């Protein structure tokens, strides 16, 4: 597939869709397209893993099919299911008519009785498609086995109907928060991309792109503070999403320059645990005001 001409073109087209990538992201997306392989995206929560898939879909003007994984998701929820109730109705409706069992069987195991789930939908789609399998680490181990055929050959086997082969290779993203180790077999079939917290320049650019009204000076202070905070040992380090929330909060409060008082009062937007708030306040020497507690 040649959906992108070069990595720089990926950067450019993602940027139009308001996603600021960098060279390594662009190279991986570009290679995934050329090699026709799925991309496994890992990284801390809130670094734009899901957003990347959505942005690629926007850039390609493709249909986004999303499978949100959770504990206990299975074939029937992810791939396809036979519509029992409709089949039973059909069998009852047939009563009285002269039909052989073979005829009934071919009837009830046909297209009409098939409930299409996201994975099958992505395989059978005719237009450009991006398939997002979100939070794959939440699933049980067995579910990964189900994905292997799909990810390496882009086909699905339905015993009653035969093998469905993809008409066009969809762009596949799998995201993981790394709460468990994925199987080697699955990893081998994917290209790997680790999305870490962005560096200073890129995060600043992201903040300015998403909150354009923000003064540049303030954006600079925000990202520097956030970087200092991330270097600490915390229960939950602030993600890009939280940086953006903080930027918006400050904007709404009419703050134009960060000072200790502002930082102290708004730190809770950035940090989700009281112990973290205290630790950060201690490090930045802005001990929480006793009045606030």
């Amino acid at each position, binding site marked *: 597939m040649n959906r992108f001409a070069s*990595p720089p073109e990926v950067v450019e087209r993602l940027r139009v869709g308001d996603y600021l990538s960098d*060279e*390594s992201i662009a*190279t*991986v997306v*570009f*290679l995934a397209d*050329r*090699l026709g*392989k799925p991309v*496994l995206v*890992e*990284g801390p929560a809130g670094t734009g893993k899901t957003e990347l898939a959505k942005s690629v879909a926007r850039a390609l003007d493709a249909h986004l099919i999303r499978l949100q994984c959770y*504990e206990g998701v299975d074939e029937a929820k992810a791939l396809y299911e036979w519509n*029992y*109730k409709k089949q*039973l109705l059909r069998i009852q409706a047939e009563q009285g008519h002269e039909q052989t069992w073979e005829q009934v069987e071919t009837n009830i195991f046909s297209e009409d009785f098939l409930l299409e789930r996201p994975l099958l939908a992505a395989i059978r789609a005719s237009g450009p498609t991006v398939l997002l399998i979100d939070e794959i680490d939440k699933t*049980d*181990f067995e579910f990964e086995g189900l994905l292997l055929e799909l990810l390496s050959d882009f086909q699905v086997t339905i015993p009653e109907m035969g093998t469905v082969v993809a008409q066009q290779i969809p762009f596949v993203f799998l995201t993981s928060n*790394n*709460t*468990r*180790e994925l199987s*080697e077999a699955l*990893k*081998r079939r*994917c*290209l*790997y*991309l*680790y999305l*870490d917290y962005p560096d200073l320049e890129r995060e600043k650019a992201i903040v300015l792109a998403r909150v354009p009204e923000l003064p540049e000076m303030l954006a600079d*202070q925000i990202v*520097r*503070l956030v*970087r*200092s905070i991330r*270097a600490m*040992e915390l*229960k939950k380090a602030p993600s890009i999403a939280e940086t953006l929330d903080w930027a918006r909060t400050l904007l709404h409060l009419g703050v134009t320059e*960060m*000072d*200790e008082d502002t*930082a102290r009062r708004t730190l809770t937007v950035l940090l989700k*645990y009281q*112990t973290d708030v205290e*630790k950060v306040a201690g*490090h*930045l*020497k*802005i001990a929480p005001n006793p009045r606030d507690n």
Partner: protein
Amino acid sequence: MLARLLDFTHALRRAGVPVAASENIDALRALGHVPFDDRDAFRAALATTMVKNEAHRTAFDTLFELYFGAAPTPEATDSRDSSEGPVDQEQYLEDLFRMLLSGDASGLRDLARRAVAAFGRVDMPQGGSPYFQYRVFRAVDLDAMMRRLMEELAQRSDLSALEQQLWRDEFEARVRGFREEVDAEVRRRLAEHRGPEAVARHSVRPLPEDLEFVRATRDEIAQLRRAIRPLARKLATRLAMRRKHARRGRLDVRKTVRHSLSTGGVPFDTRYRHRTPHKPELFLLCDISGSVSAFARFTLMFVHGFQSQFSRVRSFVFVDTLDEVTHFFENEDFVAAVDRMQAEANVVWLDGHSDYGTSLRRFWEQYGGSLGPRASVLILGDARNNYRSSEAWVVKSLKQKARRVFWLNPEPVRYWDTGDSIASEYARYADGMIEVRNLRQLEEFIGRVV
């Protein structure tokens, strides 16, 4: 090129990064699509096809620099030649100071190269001339440099305390970056000199989970602390999953019939009664005297990282007497709790040398009553008792009251029973004495016991 790539693959595998043959082929296919002269794209293409775990990335980057490192730029070669003549150290330090203040990344990289060329070389009589980090840092004292930066900062009275702290963090990051550049440059020059293979063997540090507790350096301890939270979380997920799968109980007729209504009365899906899972109680007894404290601390952190998998965890620490520290872990931050515990627990009674006998007896007298048939006891320590009385009968009595008693020993098996170690005296009564030298072994053990 192909040969180089294969060598690189071998080096990765030796460093513990699993690269499958199919991944190697993918890497080659990927290289066909990126411009040959674009080094960053080249690196990204190799990384995405060969490294599927972020923990392996440092090893990959180190080795990549060795095997595909940039050829020295013309300026760098010049400066190496000019290094035959004396480089003015004063002038160099001044340059470095200015550059750290301005924070120009490429300027700092050049300076790092110059530093290695100028100060890092040792001329060997055999004609070789290897380079050494320590020589560079003897000439370029980074701690002094940091102090100078701080002084400069203190003079800026227009900055608020908050700004000051931000700048301090910034400078620390820049100095750290410079140090890494020097390390990389030294490795690169050595690789040029001796071939990448020889250097690769020594320059890749083990992954955090393979680090030995007892021998970890200060930087590595920091790494371990960062690794411990995700590892604990992973293990907790795995244990919870296993428990969930194990709890399919007897057929629940009522639920099955109710559910069959949606399929016209035909019971397609059978439903089962859930059994309430049994969660073990855990008692941890940790020796936190100097020699093994790192091990005990990490075990405490690790176990408290998945407390939810136990009905109760009680922790005790001892040196020559014992104290309960469970309450330190009640507030959620288990990593910080260990620091507080170390400072506040009352564990030294006499002289601060390990005394297993007294500590065990005290545990038995004071807390033995709370042990029940569901309790597992873990004793952590090297069993080096400084030739005091062992009181091994306590372990025997613990074994009778509790479900299981395990002893985790951070020393390699071959050191057991040497010197003042009385490992086997205790091991006789416990369900097992297990060697646990790194996080991986610890994780395995805990996974098996729970």
